């Protein structure tokens, strides 16, 4: 692989409650520029915690107790993500790594318009743009994700779930980051909208060349769209590899267990959207 864009090495995250809980144990992942890395696992396995650690959003009682995260800038220099603080961290956020959260219902400020929330990004990252320029850029972003620019004046509650998620994606693209962390971006949406959003992400990736850390419990979806996939169980990364390799020769029990759990139409390649279909011998999905 060429020099990785993001290198997570031996990362450990602990919740420092009275009985400390290790949410992420000694996880190492490399993400190459422009690739989609899928991270799968059941609820509570620590994948969201990992996502928050990468974007430095963890709050006490969660704390990173070991390991390092390195990010490679376009000019070749390397940034120690865990060592950033204050102004540097603020500048780093969203510019280099942005995030799309699960369930954008709540991720948008309910009392401010879409326009002001996108404009905030430009203002606080010292983009040096005038008000008109900001509005124009925001309109462009919305068009990119297929939303009518007139929606700039809308409030979040006036948009549908799918639209809100697209707005989130548009915002994530605002500063042309090289990595976008997506935490269950489609889980809260219905299957058709889900398909649209995935296609949108692929299209945008082709156009803007960013890498994606795609986190979801839907292994089937990941096998379809990712370049490489990692499987997490109880905080540890138990397996990683290409989707082909994982399906053909799974090394870990849990991976095999996950692969076996899919209902499928034909019995061989699992695909998304099959949740609601009965499988062959009449048993329910």
């Amino acid at each position: 692989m060429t020099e990785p864009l993001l290198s997570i090495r031996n990362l450990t995250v602990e919740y420092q409650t009275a009985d400390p809980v290790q949410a992420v144990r000694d996880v190492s992942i490399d993400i190459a520029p422009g690739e989609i890395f899928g991270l799968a696992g059941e609820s509570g396995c620590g994948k969201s915690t990992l996502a928050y650690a990468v974007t430095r959003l963890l709050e006490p009682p969660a704390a990173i107790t070991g390991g390092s995260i390195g990010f490679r800038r376009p000019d070749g220099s390397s940034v120690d993500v865990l060592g950033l603080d204050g102004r540097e961290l603020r500048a780093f956020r969203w510019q280099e790594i942005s995030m799309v959260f699960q369930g954008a219902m709540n991720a948008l400020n309910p009392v401010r318009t879409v326009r002001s929330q996108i404009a905030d990004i430009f203002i606080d990252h010292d983009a040096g743009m005038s008000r008109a320029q900001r509005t124009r850029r925001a309109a462009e972003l919305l068009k990119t994700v297929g939303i009518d620019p007139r929606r700039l004046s809308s409030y979040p509650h006036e948009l549908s779930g799918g639209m809100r998620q697209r707005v989130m994606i548009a915002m994530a693209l605002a500063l042309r980051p090289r990595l976008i962390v997506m935490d269950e971006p489609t889980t809260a949406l219905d299957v058709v909208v889900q398909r649209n959003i995935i296609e949108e992400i692929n299209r945008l990736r082709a156009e803007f060349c960013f890498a994606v850390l795609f986190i979801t419990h839907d292994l089937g979806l990941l096998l379809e769209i990712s370049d490489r996939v990692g499987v997490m169980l109880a905080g540890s990364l138990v397996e990683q590899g290409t989707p082909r390799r994982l399906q053909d020769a799974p090394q870990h029990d849990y991976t095999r267990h996950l692969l076996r759990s899919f209902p499928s139409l034909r019995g061989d390649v699992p695909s998304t959207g099959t949740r609601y279909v009965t499988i062959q011998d009449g048993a329910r999905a």
Partner: protein
Amino acid sequence: MAFSQQELADPDVLPASPVPGRRTRWAFFRNASWKLWTGLAICAFFVVIAAVAPLIAPNPNQTSSIGLQPPSINHVFGTTNIGQDVLQQVLGGTTGSIVIGVVAGALTVVLSMLFGVGGAFLGGKWDEASSLISNVFLVIPGLPLLIIVTDYVQSRSILVIAVVIAIVSWAGAARVLRAQTLSVRSRDYVDAARVASESTWRIMLREILPNLMPIIASQFVFGALGAILAEAGLSFLGLGAAGGKSWGSILFFAQNAQAITLGAWWWFVPPGLCIAIVGAALGLINFSIDERINPRLRTLAVIKRSRRHGRKATK
């Protein structure tokens, strides 16, 4: 108690979402903080005094010739202008204040449950009507109404005063209870009970009420606190229960006898202090109930403890 990552990571954890039943009630007491115990201890102390007051302070109104004496060995809290022992007065007054607090608090809760829980549960027109009534009562200012009604009623028995206080104060609690009932009512386990054809009464008793318990307890505490303060205010203005056996009435007499200008601080400090202490104790109890129901406030305690471990927080 270790929190699951889900609980901490998921901001949508609903307040009273635990499984209804006995398990939660005992868990509440087991995990209670110092606030709860301190509050309960103080309240218990005062309740005991209220109960035994007739025994240890049989004649609080007994006058003597040594008027307006500062605290001394004979009279720990000094004397009033007509030589009454202030300590005995305060002890005697405990009964009146505590009884009013408890009775009015209970009546307030009953009334607010009727309108709040009942209305929300029955839904439809009942809900609209009770909601309207409680909003109207909420918006009409309490103390002026209390003063006027008390004056019109002209009876001064403790029960009447308690009833009037309850009538004036139930609206706030009703609103809270209604909101909580609506949220509980829409939860899945209630729908499940309905589908299983449980009768309306059974659903109310077995599914909804247990989940409302913390809020009801909290409203009772609020109600008692409000009642004690309201009664004190009324007595202070001379409209309280006849016979003047509460902390507020002590202050009334003190004010009338110009205690402040005469510098007799020992007369009015103890009764007010008692009110404040009992009030604070009730507030502490409510606080700990609040911490229980609102998991975000709970998380704060955990955060504080983890900060103390000296780990660098990732910012």
